[in-house]
Structure formats: C-alpha cells, structure tokens
C-alpha cells in the first residue's frame, strides 16, 4: 500500500514479523472436514472417546504440554469416578512447600490440584525444547483455527520420509499441516503404543480421534450440559411465548373498541 496508514498496524506488523513463538498456520491450509459427534448446536461428546483421549493425553501429550487450567476434579466431566480421580491425582508428584531447612519438597497430588505442568516455567520449557515452549493445551482446540479438524489432520499428517522436494532442516520433521511444513515436535502417536482398556484397537488414527475429542472437551468442558440446558430453556421460552402471544392478542382485541 502506498499511503502510510495507521501507524499502529505497522508497529503491530513489525512485532508480529519479529516474533513467532507459536506455530501459526496460514488460512490457506484448510484441513479436511471430519465428522465429530460434538459438532453442531446439539452435538455431544462421546464419553468412551473422551476417556480414551484422556489416556493418550496423560501418557503422551502431557510429557511436554501443560493443561494448567484444569484440575483433576474436572475429569468428572469425562465420566471418571471420584476414586479414579483421587488415585490419578495421588500418582502425580507436585511441588510442595519448602521444608524446615528450606529444601524444596514434593507431595502427592490432590483432586483439587491443577494438572501438573511438565516444566517449571515457559522459559524452562523453551530452554529444553529447542527455543519454543510447547503450547498449553487448556484452550488449544478453541484457539487453533479449524480446531478439531486441524488437530486430527496434524496428528496424522507427519510424513517420513518427507515427500520429494520438501525442505529439509536437521532436527525438524515434515508435517502437511504446519506453516512451512517443518516442525520440531516429533510424531507423538504410533500404532499400538498404548492399549485401550475397552479393547478399541489403538491405531494412530484412533488415538488421534480420541485425543482430539479430549482436547476439544478440555477447551469447552460444559458443551454437553450447555446443549442440554439450552434445549430445555428454548422449549420453556417457546411455551411462555405462546402464552404471551395469546394474552397479547386477547388484550389488543379490546384496543379496537377504545
């Protein structure tokens, strides 16, 4: 553009060019549309998929990604029992208060604790993970354009070896669905690397579907309840509206006489 317009935007643009902390994807990379049970105004999460997805998150994703907005108790939302939640929390060691000599201590987690973060801070994570901290996953599915479809496409989009002619950088891997097709994160899922207790075959595609479902739930945990309350609220309001319209018509008949 020839005219120097709003300087703010120029400043913003420069700042955006100099820093790119997160692997943003350009709008042109539209992932193929998948069918999800939770899509649409009445969609509902599949509880089995949520529980399998949490297993994938807990065993694999959480070794690098935090999900610090959630507490273990929130997992009641995917149908976990209180006992299972307490046991899970107890299995996580969380930093406690310093002891009498000032030494750091660890304690078993409690259901009210927030999910344990894999790194003490973003800076520490960036230092270990090649300069970029793995993004927190609490709202990842909401923030990421094309949310669930992108997550699924990304998790199943690694190509090894990369296609002919693709750029190669040591320490980076090829993925169809990231900007520039290069990413430092190694492919997280492998066929049969976990075993689902419900007997579902743990293919890469199945794990990707399940963990995507779990991540969408994490970013919008009250969706089932919201849709359920929404339906009854709308039905109730429609009933009231019918009464109100009848009352209004009856009243306004008299207005003609006035």
């Amino acid at each position: 553009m020839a005219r120097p317009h709003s300087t703010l935007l120029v400043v913003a643009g420069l700042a955006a060019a100099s820093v790119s902390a997160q692997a943003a994807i350009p709008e042109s990379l539209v992932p193929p549309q998948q069918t999800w049970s939770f899509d649409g105004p009445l969609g509902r999460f599949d509880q089995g998929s949520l529980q399998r997805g949490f297993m994938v998150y807990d065993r694999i994703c959480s070794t690098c990604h935090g999900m610090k907005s959630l507490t273990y108790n929130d997992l009641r939302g995917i149908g976990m029992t209180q006992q299972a939640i307490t046991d899970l929390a107890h299995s996580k060691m969380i930093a406690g208060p310093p002891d009498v000599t000032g030494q750091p201590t660890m304690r078993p987690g409690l259901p009210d604790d927030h999910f344990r973060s894999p790194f003490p801070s973003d800076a520490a994570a960036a230092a270990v993970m090649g300069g970029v901290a793995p993004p927190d996953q609490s709202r990842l599915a909401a923030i990421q354009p094309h949310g669930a479809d992108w997550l699924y496409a990304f998790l199943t989009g690694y190509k090894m070896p990369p296609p002919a002619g693709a750029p190669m950088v040591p320490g980076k891997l090829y993925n169809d669905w990231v900007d520039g097709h290069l990413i430092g994160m190694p492919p997280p899922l492998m066929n049969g690397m976990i075993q689902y207790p419900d007997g579902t075959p743990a293919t890469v595609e199945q794990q990707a579907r399940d963990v995507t479902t779990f991540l969408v739930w994490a970013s919008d945990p009250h969706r089932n309840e919201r849709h359920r309350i929404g339906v009854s609220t709308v039905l109730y309001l429609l009933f009231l509206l019918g009464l109100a319209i009848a009352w209004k018509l009856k009243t306004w008949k008299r207005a003609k006489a006035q």
Partner: protein
Amino acid sequence: MKTPDNTGECSTPASTGSGLTGWIDRRLPVVSAFRAEYIDFRMPRNLNWLWNFGAILTVVLLLMLATGTFLAMNYTPTSAGAFASVEAIDRQLSGGWLLRAMHMTGANLFLAALYIHLFRGLYYGSYKAPREILWLTGLILLVMVMATAFAGYMLPWGQMSYWGADVITKAVGAVPLIGATLEHVLTGSDHLGDVFLHRFFVLHFLLAFLVVAVVGLHVAAVHFSGSNNPLGIEPKTKKDTLTFHPYYTTKDLVGLLVFALVFSALMFFWPGILTEAANYAPADPMHTPADIEPEWYFLPYYGLLQSVPSKFGGLVVSAASLLVLFALPWLDRSPVRSARFRPICRVGLFGLVAAFVLLAAAGKHHAEGGWMLVGRLAGLYYFAYFLVLLPLASRIEKTRPLPSSIAAATQGDA
C-alpha cells in the same frame, strides 16, 4: 376505574388505598407514581415492534448487573491472576460457565439492541423537539456503554484484551501535546499491567452503575415528553393513545421473550459467533497476534480509525462520528419527524445504515487494498448524511402529507 380517595389531611392528589400501601403512599407517593407512570400511563396506540427495545435494554442491563456482580466476586484484577481467575470461573466455579456466558452474550446483545434502538430514533425523528434531552441522554448512555464494554473486554486479560488495550492507549497517545499524559493516565504506568487492569476493573464496575443512573434520567425524560411513534405526530386526543398496562406490558412481554429466544440460541448453541477465540490465549506482551480486531460493535469506528492516513486524524474522525449525533436535533430542522413522510431522508438513512456496515467491513479487513477506498467513501457518506443531506433536505424535501391524527391513520391501516 375508581376515583382516588382524597379526603385525608394529605393534599397529594393520587394517594391511593388504605392500609400499609396507602400509609406509605401518603408519605412518599411511590405507589401512585408507579400507577401513573407504568399502568395508567398513556402511550401512542400505534407503536410497532421497534418500540420493544427500550424494555429489552432495561432487562439486559439488569441481567448484566446481576451476573457481573457474581463474576466480580470471583475475579482477580491482577495481570498475573486475571486470566487464571476467569478460567476458574468457567471451569471450576459451580455454574460459573453459565454466569459468564450470560454476561458475554448480554454484552454483545446489549450493544446490538442499542444500535437498533438508536436506528429507531433516527428513522422516526425521535430526536426532535420536545425530545432533545431524551436523545442526548440516550447518546450519553451509548458512549458510557461503549466505554463499559471496552473496559469489560480488558478483564479476561487474553491476547485480544491486551493488544486491544495496546492499540487504544497508543491511539490516545497520538493526541498532540497532551497525548503522552493521557496515555499515562489510562495505563497508569509505563506498561500495560497491574495498574491498568485494576483501573479498568474499577471503571467497568463504576460505569455500569453510572449507566443505571443515566437510564433513570432517560426514562424520566421519556415519561415527561411522551413516546414518539411511527407517524411522528403527537397524540391529540385520548383516542390516539392506549394505557401502558395492559397493552404495552403484553406487547413488551412478547418482544422480551422473542429476544430471550435469540439470546438463548446464541448462548447455548452458537457461542462461537460472539466470542473471539484468540482471547482464550493469555496476554503475552512479547507476542503480537497477526490479526488485532475489536469486538464487532466497535468495527465501524475501527474502520474509520484505519481509513484516515494519520493516527490522530483517525482518532478525531472516530470520535466525531459519535459527536455529530449530539448535534442532530439542530442539524435536522424539518418539522416532519418520521422518515415515512420524508422520501429523501428515508433513502438517505438506509444509505447511512449501509455506510455503517461497510465501515465495519473495512475495519474487519484493516482498510487494506480496496477496503481503504470503501472505508473512506463510507466515512464520507456518514458525515455527509448528517452535515449536508439532513440540513439541505429540511429545505428542499417535499414531504408526504401527514395524517390528521394517530387514531385516523391506524383505523385506516386496519
């Protein structure tokens, strides 16, 4: 209707009833005032559905105060704690997600209803004598509600909160001479942090309750001057009017329920239409988002801000787009109020709505490429409508004949 018993020692004309209400009413006539203003109050008989939005706005305002109070009890106004506290409201506080969803949907639909209410005033000439003060208090409310909405949007301290604040405080900093001081007054320190957030939390709260006070003035003004109506002619006889209750109470109830249905549909089924997903990422001063965009209700002003090739110029033009509305009663001198009888103004006004929408579209596209031209032309038309077309139309427009009375016109309709 019973004639009020007025034989007591009290000279208040409408002291009604016996017992406790009568006792109170003879000392502070709240009961008779309510009866006079909300039951027996005479309204023009021809009000259409656009007149529902006053009642709708009142109800949404009460909803905002109620939900906001409980949200504030669980909110931490510090840059380190704000985002986490909003997440906790959404996730761990029992029913918190619903409370917050109502507040967010309410904010959006408050502004939407306000724009419709404003359009109704423009279309039916409700700003003309004797309703200038009604119009001015309404505009003050618009500005106050915008400020409240902006302050409220800062509070979750997400990426859009932070960078929206950054754009606005820097725009204020572009004011010549006093800009730096003004910017410092807004931010409270040399960066956007705790002081700024705490300040805007208090402002959000304070402004919300000041809005209630000005609504009081606004409602008092409409009860003094009486409602305008789609014909824009004053009621002359009792035949032109109906009592507020039961006629407009029942009509307002229907309008409110339809509005509540739209509200519920958006809140329960399509919340993504109104929320900016990018604001679910916590504020990060080191990482500018690729696309900084205000909420939809500020887009037309953002469009103006960006269509002007100077930061200060853009600020002046955006502010002027609101200020020009304050001068409207004196720019439009035509004695005919309703656009129904004003062929030029009617077309011009639909053009104004189109210009407003185009400015929003230009704002959404950051006035880049062709949108720059669209934004400038729309901006030009916006001001030309108020400063050229309306004053000129008062002289040259051939208005259609006005009906002799509201009753005569409505009987004709039916």
